[in-house]
């Protein structure tokens, strides 16, 4: 069996890292103290996942890059996160809808990873992440219902969030040579294979939230091969500025 490269681990790590950075922007800006802490906790969970995954990806790559080198010294074209996680936070409803769409996907992916034995190190990281993401998924789903089935204003706002974010979801279920190699090695099923379950779960949440699933043929993609929206560059600039200005700086 051919040894898998490090790209597929990098994708997992980049999804977690970029979303962690996005969510941490809410710190001290949350709609209530309690929700501020909740979003920051979720950001920290994701950051922990990213650290473990990037460390492992760096080891696999074998060029001496550690988690910091991968997080702080790559350009936007070298990041392989899905576009969905780099979309700016917008208002709280935008953030919650983005989170729900991603959490439902991340949970399926981590559950698959935790249940395989071909890559035990990733299975261990995934087993820990599954517990965290189950909570994230419950949190975001409850909020989507609360806002969607809330007032007319909150309903209209999150319906609009959903309409804007929905075209980004298709990318999560695309396959290429990297994901096909993972499937062939028995590590992860093809991304396309969990689209049906994801959609079923998301539709159940949307139904409870009295929201309509957007009908769209628009497809926004490219993140896995480094073609990002302009928003990622700004995010990275803020995240990387200190290490790039003072390389190796420590707290």
């Amino acid at each position: 069996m051919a040894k898998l490269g490090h790209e597929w681990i990098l994708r997992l790590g980049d999804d977690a890292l970029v979303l962690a950075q996005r969510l941490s922007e809410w710190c001290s800006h949350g709609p209530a103290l309690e929700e501020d802490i909740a979003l920051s906790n979720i950001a920290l969970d994701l950051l922990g996942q990213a650290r473990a995954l990037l460390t492992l990806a760096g080891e696999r790559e074998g060029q001496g890059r550690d988690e910091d080198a991968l997080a702080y010294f790559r350009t936007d074209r070298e990041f392989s996160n899905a576009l969905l996680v780099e979309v700016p936070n917008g208002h709280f409803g935008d953030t919650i809808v983005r989170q729900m769409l991603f959490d439902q996907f991340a949970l399926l992916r981590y559950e698959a990873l935790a249940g395989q034995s071909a890559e035990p190190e990733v299975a261990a990281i995934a087993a820990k992440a599954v517990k965290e993401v189950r909570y994230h998924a419950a949190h975001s789903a409850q909020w989507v219902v609360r806002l969607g089935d809330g007032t007319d204003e909150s309903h209209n706002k999150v319906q609009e969030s959903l309409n804007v974010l929905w075209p980004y979801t298709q990318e999560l279920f695309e396959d290429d040579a990297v994901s096909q190699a993972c499937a062939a090695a028995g590590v992860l099923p093809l991304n396309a294979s969990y689209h049906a379950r994801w959609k079923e779960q998301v539709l159940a949440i949307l139904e409870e939230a009295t929201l309509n699933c957007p009908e769209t043929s628009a497809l926004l993609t490219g993140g896995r091969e480094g073609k990002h929206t302009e928003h990622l560059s700004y995010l990275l600039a803020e995240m990387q500025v200190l290490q790039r200005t003072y390389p190796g700086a420590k707290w």
Partner: protein
Amino acid sequence: MSASKNEWPLWEVFVRSRQGLSHKHVGSLHAADATMAVNNARDVYTRRQEGTSIWVVKAEDITASTPAEKDILFDPANDKVYRHPTFYDLPDEVKNM
């Protein structure tokens, strides 16, 4: 109530730190409903592994004694030392007394 009508209700939070101990009041928080209150309590009060179980109670559902009643409620117990379990020895095996 003087609180803004846009503000979420106040909940009192009780956390059990480990099995065998009782839930202890740890503080309060705002939440729109009971599910959110449990979630918020988890995030605000148990993020450093403080708990194994959470209770939340709407603050308005708690009936409290008033300071004015202090004399009649508590003073009569002052001179009744025989109510304290100090007249016999506890076995060493008994914990949490």
